[in-house]
């Protein structure tokens, strides 16, 4: 169902000669967890600032929940919770007091604010530390407090800018599952920006790959792989013992496997065959090899995730262009 909560139409943001965001179109549906994946300096934060109405786009229009962010930022901020990158709290106040302050800025009276803040702190697992000053919080605790801070206004959309930076792996897993849980329970739309693809892969329904101000591709992981890979999604490695027969080469193997569909490339490397294919055909390959009376010593299958996509785009350069 097409019900965009966040809608960007051809927005650009220029700082002098530098174009941070270039003619970006994006729509995010209700209840979705959208991952904005890109290296540092790709324009992710700038896009988020424009969504929140904290900076004006040079051209194009932004709307959140049907409200124009540029002309009516206050109405947008009532519905959107934003967790900035490297969020800060008032170090002299306790976690609870920090949350109460945010709640009161959103128009709650003191007793309601206190009640809500207490509930949310329990929810994000800071119930025991709520009276501790935030200056003494660890990085992971601060991010969880940040999440509570974002949720206290009962948002329809939450925007998290690099929420996992600087947290240990266990903390990341906890935070991500918390985000996922909250999104499902309360039907909150989440925009999650990160340069870490594993995290995006774990929680996001849909991902947009963002490089130098442009979305290169968007879709779920599977669609992305199909879009971005002219090569296969799977890599199957074989070691074949020819036994009494003459050793098999890569061309012979390709002929042998020819009846199987979806094979894209066969190559040999140091006695190890590598087969790129677009679907999981390891069992058919094994069958063919055995039927041809070869001994199969090793068969391993690698699935390309976002990892490979990411590497291909950010590290390997845009060789496909």
């Amino acid at each position, binding site marked *: 169902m097409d019900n965009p909560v966040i809608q960007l139409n051809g927005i650009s943001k220029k700082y002098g000669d530098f174009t941070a965001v270039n003619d970006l179109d994006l729509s995010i549906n209700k209840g979705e967890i959208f991952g904005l994946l890109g290296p540092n300096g790709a324009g992710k934060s700038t896009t988020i600032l424009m969504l929140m109405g904290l900076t004006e786009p040079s051209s194009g229009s932004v709307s959140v929940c049907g409200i124009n962010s540029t002309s009516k930022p*206050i109405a947008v901020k009532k519905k959107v919770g*934003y967790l*900035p*990158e490297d*969020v*800060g709290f008032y170090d*002299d106040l306790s976690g609870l007091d920090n949350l109460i302050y945010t709640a009161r800025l959103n128009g709650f*009276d003191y007793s309601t604010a206190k009640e809500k803040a207490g509930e949310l702190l329990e929810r994000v697992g800071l119930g025991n530390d709520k009276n501790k000053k935030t200056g003494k919080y660890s990085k992971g605790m601060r991010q969880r407090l940040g999440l509570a801070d974002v949720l206290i206004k009962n948002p329809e959309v939450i925007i998290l800018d690099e929420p996992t930076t600087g947290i240990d792996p266990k903390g990341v897993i906890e935070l991500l599952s918390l985000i996922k849980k909250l999104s499902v329970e309360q039907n909150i739309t989440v925009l999650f920006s990160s340069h870490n693809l594993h995290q995006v892969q774990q929680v996001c329904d849909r991902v947009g790959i963002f490089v130098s101000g442009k979305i290169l591709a968007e879709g779920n992981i599977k669609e992305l792989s199909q879009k971005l890979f002219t090569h296969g999604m799977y890599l199957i490695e074989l070691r074949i013992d020819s036994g009494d027969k003459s050793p098999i080469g890569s061309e012979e193997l390709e002929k042998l496997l020819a009846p199987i569909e979806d094979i894209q490339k066969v190559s040999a490397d140091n006695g190890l065959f590598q087969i790129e294919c677009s679907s999981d055909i390891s069992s058919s390959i094994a069958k063919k090899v055995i039927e041809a009376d070869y001994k199969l010593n090793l068969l391993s299958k690698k699935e390309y995730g976002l990892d490979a996509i990411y590497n291909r785009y950010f590290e390997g350069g845009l060789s496909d262009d």
Partner: protein
Amino acid sequence: MISIATKQTNPFGVIVSKEISDTVKSWKFIIMVALVLLTCMGSLYAALDDFSAAIKGGSADDDFFFLKLYTHSNGTLPSFLVFISFLGPLLGISMGFDSINTEQNKGTLSRLLAQPIYRDYILNAKFLAALTILSYLFIGLSLQVLGFGLIFIGIPPTTDELMRIIIFSIVNIIYVGFWLNLSILFSVKFRQAATSALAGISVWLFFTIFYSMIVNLIAKGLAPVRFISENQMVSFQRFVQNLMRFNPGQLFNDVTTTLLRPSVRSLGPLTTEQTIGAIPNPLPLGQSLMLVWPQVVALIGGTLMFFAIAYTIFMRREIRSR
């Protein structure tokens, strides 16, 4: 009725009350207040030490016992007035120099701006909170001097004196507000709190120490020969005086001196013709006020100007986290 009214929380009030409680609890403020209180007690002691000698009678100001408390000193320590004109700017600068940049450096500013509040609420609230505290402080100080005066002298102040003291406190607040706004402007402009504090203090030092020296130099260079007409001499003096009045401290001194010494009848040069036949009696409050009104307006104008500049910079700035 009250409970219904408080149900709807006004974010602006929330920010102001948080800022006030933050400031009052901060070490910076406690140190400054301790300093101000200490000097005021000292100056009060200096005033009361030989108070009987000061009010012997003879000059027009001597009927105003209470005002003497603020201006008189036995010479060991400066008077209350001198202390305030010296420490007031410092207090103003200390209250404002880290107001915006610290929030930004701590990463709380972008979180604050993500809440449904207008951006100028933050700036306005910071200013209002600091000004509220300063108002309490200065009115408190003036009343403290008044109270001690009552105990030691034993004569209650006249209405005229009380009014002058109240207006004096208000002028104090305006003057400190001027420096407060200047330092808020620096805190918007400079990302580092230390830079902004230094900038504020150097402006203050420039005006308290160097400015009058520079004006004197200019005056010496431009001084006319001895044999000139009276009119030329007067206009030259006016010119020098107007140069001095670019110094906010000078404006403040003009105002407070006139308010606390009712016998002051002009802030510019007077010719002999003008003074001939004048009885040296004190001016009524209304006349004293008329005399200093331009100075007060100039101080308020400067305050508003700095605020407007800070406002323009702050409203148009893109706030990123840290």
